[in-house]
């Protein structure tokens, strides 16, 4: 079932120096410095709007930095010497192409056999000829994962790919991603709002606060990690308490207390 015909590819090391991003007069990322080792699994957490998704999109080349640069193995990103793949929160499959064709998107030559092999790796071999609309949300994300893997990426960027899935499917997907990472050893940057997910998967948990690295915490637990263990809970607690220490930028304002007199009118 898990046999692979995709050759393992070594990851790429990332160096971010003085990286900033502004949208108009709003600064999303402020002079970020970051080093990521080849083959490392880095989980990035933070509140909504902290800049974690922007960080990912900058590394993916979907946005351009206002200042600073991202280097991969010492050379600038845009030279394209290595392969980066991005997985989005929604699967973004082309609804008019079959599952197999979606996996082979952008490939030429005899890609079909390889696409079937990668689909088998994510456990969807028998769904190759279905339309994406016939799959469940979790299956669609697995197709998106296969589509990324077929390119044998050296860097896999995951932008909250499991956010829309139910709890059980999410744990299955986490195990799948971990297993594939252990086989292929690419570098992973996972953006998530789920602290438990970050601690379960990351070699390091990176907390982004107001455009800066607020916390850079190694996770020394052995894999695969047991969620209920004391070490796990302690780490999760540490990250959570740090996240909660800052006021939420998008917090909904408390409703004004309603006077009793006003209520009577409403009745």
């Amino acid at each position, binding site marked *: 079932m898990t046999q692979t015909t995709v050759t393992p590819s070594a990851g790429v090391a990332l160096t971010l120096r003085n990286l900033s991003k502004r949208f108009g007069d709003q600064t999303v990322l402020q002079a970020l410095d970051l080093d990521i080792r080849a083959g490392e699994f880095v989980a990035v957490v933070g509140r909504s709007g902290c800049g974690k998704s922007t960080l990912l999109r900058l590394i993916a080349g*979907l946005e351009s930095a206002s200042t600073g640069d991202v280097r991969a193995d010492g050379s600038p990103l845009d030279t394209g010497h290595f392969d980066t793949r991005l997985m*989005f929160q929604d699967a*973004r499959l*082309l609804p*008019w192409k079959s599952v197999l064709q979606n996996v082979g*998107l*952008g490939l030429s030559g005899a890609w079909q056999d390889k696409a079937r092999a990668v689909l088998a790796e994510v456990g969807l071999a028998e769904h190759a000829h279905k339309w994406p609309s016939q799959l469940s949300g979790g299956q669609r994300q697995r197709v998106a994962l296969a589509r990324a893997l077929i390119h044998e990426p050296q860097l896999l960027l995951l932008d909250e790919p499991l956010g829309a899935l139910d709890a059980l499917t999410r744990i299955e997907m986490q195990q799948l991603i971990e297993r594939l990472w252990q086989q292929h050893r690419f570098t992973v940057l996972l953006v998530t709002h789920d602290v438990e997910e970050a601690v379960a998967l990351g070699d390091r948990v990176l907390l982004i606060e107001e455009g800066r690295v607020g916390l850079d915490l190694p996770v020394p637990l052995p894999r695969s990690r047991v969620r209920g263990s004391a070490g796990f809970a302690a780490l999760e607690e540490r990250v959570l308490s740090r996240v909660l220490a800052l006021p939420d930028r998008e917090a909904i304002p408390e409703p004004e207390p309603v006077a009793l007199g006003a209520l009577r009118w409403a009745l």
Partner: protein
Amino acid sequence: MASAISTLAVPVWRRSAPWIVPALLVLLWQWAATHGVLTSRILPAPLAVLEAGSRLWQSGELWAHLKISFWRAAIGFGIGGGIGLLLGLITGMSRRGELLLDTTVQMIRNVPPLALIPLVILWFGIDEAAKLFLVAFGTLFPVYINTYHGIRSVDKDLVEMARSYGLRGWPLFRDVILPGALPSILVGVRFALGFAWILLIVAETISASSGIGYLAMNAREFLQTDVVVLAILLYALLGKLSDYGARQLERVWLRWHPAYQ
């Protein structure tokens, strides 16, 4: 046994139900004609219309008129729809194209095609070109607007994803933009086909020496109401047929769409 009958009965009922009302109307019409409620000068009996049809069919006249009308609708739609598709692709794909062309197209679109008839007759006489021009003019805009709208409403996230997978230029258009716009383009095609027949009727009634519209106008001169009614029914049939064709296209090209599964 009873369940076997009911499972068989459901499709039969679903197939026949839409035709009950038309069948009743035809029966009522036949009854009114044979009992003298309707004189044949106002509305001939359905059987008389059928007889006229078979007479004209046997003489080969009907087939000749049908052929020429169908040919005009097809060529006119081909020209108008083709230009509309091309313009829609240009304005949909490029901001510069939209800036340059869209206002012009929208202005011309607001001219009713039938208002052009005097000018068309002056330009082309009652030549084939007159009919083709009117049909092409009328079918251009539904295809144009729906193509433009379809391309503009292609999911931006899908385009971003495809770009991040290295798709540019023609592959991006072929694999992402065109299929994404296709449902909308096909809506335009169905509108345009309906429009093509309306315009053709008018064009053939006003200035033609062949075609179904000519058949009807000629029959009016000789008070052949049966042939007039036959021509009207033929238009209905041809309109229905072309709509059916467009729906078959939708079923093939949009088979990925949940609405067609």
